[in-house]
């Protein structure tokens, strides 16, 4: 059985990692800015990147379903395996739920999302201030949870590498493919 991720899975993982870090940083930065043309521009970019991330996670899920990821090391205790699977599941759920909440929030606030300023994403909700404010809190809370789970994800990968000294981290690294 293979112990490596496919090159496609790695590419998707790292593209999304960069995209998600950018989205989180931009999101936390922009919402406190005073209103300005730059702020409106950053919001549009954030929404375009968010739609892109959502589409990428769909591709990634399709890939994952058709390409079994390498198994966890046999040395891992059952509780930790369960935690690892639960953590990954949570990451996928959040990667879907966060862009959806952002999209719905934009609809409810009356600012339609138009991907790269070209492709309009339909508004699923009518303009409604209360619903918009509620979805804003939902989007914010999900992102705080997401940040924590990502921190856990990175912490776990580092623990595998430096403490358990297994290949969990390296098998996701791009360099690994060249070594083979």
């Amino acid at each position, binding site marked *: 059985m293979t112990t490596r991720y496919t090159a496609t899975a790695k590419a998707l993982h790292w593209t999304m990692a960069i995209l998600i870090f950018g989205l989180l940083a931009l999101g936390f930065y922009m919402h406190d800015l005073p209103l300005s*043309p730059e702020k409106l*521009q950053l919001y549009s970019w954030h929404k375009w990147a968010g739609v892109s991330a959502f589409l990428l996670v769909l591709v990634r899920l399709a890939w994952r379903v058709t390409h079994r990821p390498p198994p966890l090391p046999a040395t891992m205790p059952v509780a930790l395996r369960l935690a690892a699977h639960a953590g990954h599941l949570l990451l996928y759920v959040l990667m879907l739920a966060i862009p959806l909440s952002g999209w719905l929030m934009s609809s409810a606030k009356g600012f339609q999302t138009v991907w790269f300023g070209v492709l309009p994403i339909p508004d699923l909700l009518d303009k409604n201030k209360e619903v918009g404010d509620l979805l804003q809190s939902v989007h914010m809370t999900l992102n705080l949870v997401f940040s924590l789970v990502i921190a856990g994800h990175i912490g776990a990968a580092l623990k595998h590498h430096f403490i358990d000294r297994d290949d969990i981290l390296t098998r996701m690294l791009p360099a690994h493919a060249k070594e083979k």
Partner: protein
Amino acid sequence: MKRFVSVLVLAAALPVAAHALEFNQVQADKSSIAFVYKQMNVAVDGKFKRFSSQLSFDPAKPAAARATFDVDLASVDTGAAEGDQEVAGKPWFNTKVFPTAKFVSTGVKPLGGNKYEVTGQLSIKGKTQDVVVPATFTAQGNSGVFDGSFTIRRADFSIGEGQWAKFDIVANDVVIKFRITANASK
């Protein structure tokens, strides 16, 4: 034949008789003034919550019609609280100095059917422009509805100065849409 002609005359006279009403009681709760503009190519709408208007319109004498609107610019609803605050501020409406936008009609021209062309002067932020407003009028009994929209360029009124003066984020064109319901006085 004579009878036929008299029926025709009667039929021709009827609409005039039916329209010999002057619509001049504006129903604020059934009237709205809204706007649509493009933000990075995406249409965004808003509205004004408070305005007052006086109008008189007799479908039989459209040329004699008159309309005046005073829009309380501080009542702007952009869909976001920070937007409302921003737009009331100095670079946009500067509502402290220029609290109202005013429209005064100068003429009404019937275009056939229920279509009319209203010309008038629009004053916002100390600047006055001539505008041409296409409108339709639909009457149901005692109640008449004026619907229409026209496009202004915000730069003509210095709406959005300084960092907002460029049109790459907030477009120059703003579509003003209105629906005014007025009842006829007896």
